[in-house]
């Protein structure tokens, strides 16, 4: 018998601090598997900003930077400009990337910065206790939208993948989900493609990962993945929004 599924070596053998059923762990594993498969563990540098995602700095067995809230793409830019032959990625939540860090990710994309952003969208601020995020859906109840998000008060959720393709610097933009095995397989393909785009020097890549946060959604883990399927995917459709010129990859 042969091992067909085991822990990737780029992921340290330590328990995650995440809540039961939190999809962060799945996203971490996929990134680590891609790093293993591309054989880039020693050449990859990750950037973990503020939020639940900050602890990725302890989980990945690669060199890591911890960055301030929203600024990971700027930090990654500094790293990549110094070390252009390294693979540099950020791992950012929706509050981090799509609220406080809006300037940094848009300009990194516009510059065609040759880095990869893994953008975890779970429609809520996790670490601080379940406040409304820029990606919280209309009607979704959070600690700071207890009656449900109202567009009259809070505006509309930001669709990051739809925003980016017109920027010429973006090479690869995709939205995936990690709530069921079929989606997880697609998610890994997209993450791998994004890293390959960077390795080939084609420009900015971003993979948005729809992810369940059972604790802050007030649902059981099983209810949460169903809620993601029924509510998030209709608003945030999955797929590739921009790919490099055909045949390059």
């Amino acid at each position, binding site marked *: *018998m042969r091992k*067909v*599924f085991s822990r990737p070596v780029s992921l340290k053998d330590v328990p995650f601090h*995440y809540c*039961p059923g939190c999809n962060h*762990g799945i996203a971490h*594993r996929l990134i680590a598997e891609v790093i293993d498969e591309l054989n880039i563990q020693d050449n990859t540098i990750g950037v973990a900003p503020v939020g639940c995602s900050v602890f990725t700095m302890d989980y990945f067995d690669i060199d890591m930077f911890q960055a301030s809230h929203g600024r990971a793409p700027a930090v990654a830019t500094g790293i990549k400009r110094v070390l252009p032959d390294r693979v540099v990625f950020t791992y950012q939540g929706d509050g981090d990337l799509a609220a406080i860090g809006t300037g940094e990710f848009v300009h990194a994309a516009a510059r065609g910065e040759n880095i990869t952003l893994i953008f975890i969208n779970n429609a809520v601020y996790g670490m601080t206790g379940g406040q409304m995020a820029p990606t919280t859906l209309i009607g979704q109840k959070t600690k700071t939208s207890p009656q449900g998000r109202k567009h009259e008060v809070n505006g509309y959720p930001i669709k990051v993948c739809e925003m980016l393709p017109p920027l010429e610097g973006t090479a690869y933009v995709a939205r995936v989900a990690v709530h069921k*095995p079929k989606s*997880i397989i697609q998610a890994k393909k997209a993450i791998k493609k994004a890293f390959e785009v960077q390795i080939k020097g084609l420009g900015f890549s971003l993979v948005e990962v729809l992810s369940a946060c059972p604790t802050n959604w007030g649902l059981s883990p*099983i209810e949460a993945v169903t809620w993601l399927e029924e509510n998030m995917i209709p608003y945030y459709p999955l797929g590739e929004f921009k790919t490099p010129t055909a045949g390059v990859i």
Partner: protein
Amino acid sequence: MALITFREERCKGCRLCTTVCPKNLVVMSGQINDMGYHPASVLEMEKCTGCALCAMICPDLVIEVQREVKAV
């Protein structure tokens, strides 16, 4: 022929693995682990095909899968 192993001490009892097994083999144990959760387990291992869907959805990398792989 497959063998799946659970690192029960790492399991947080989220039950996601129980929803994806095509043969409904994954069940929650009656035991409680050190973290206070009922960990996932498989009772009828002989029926497992080693498809690894349970491992794929596990957020805590609790599950390792081995199976017979045909020589290519």
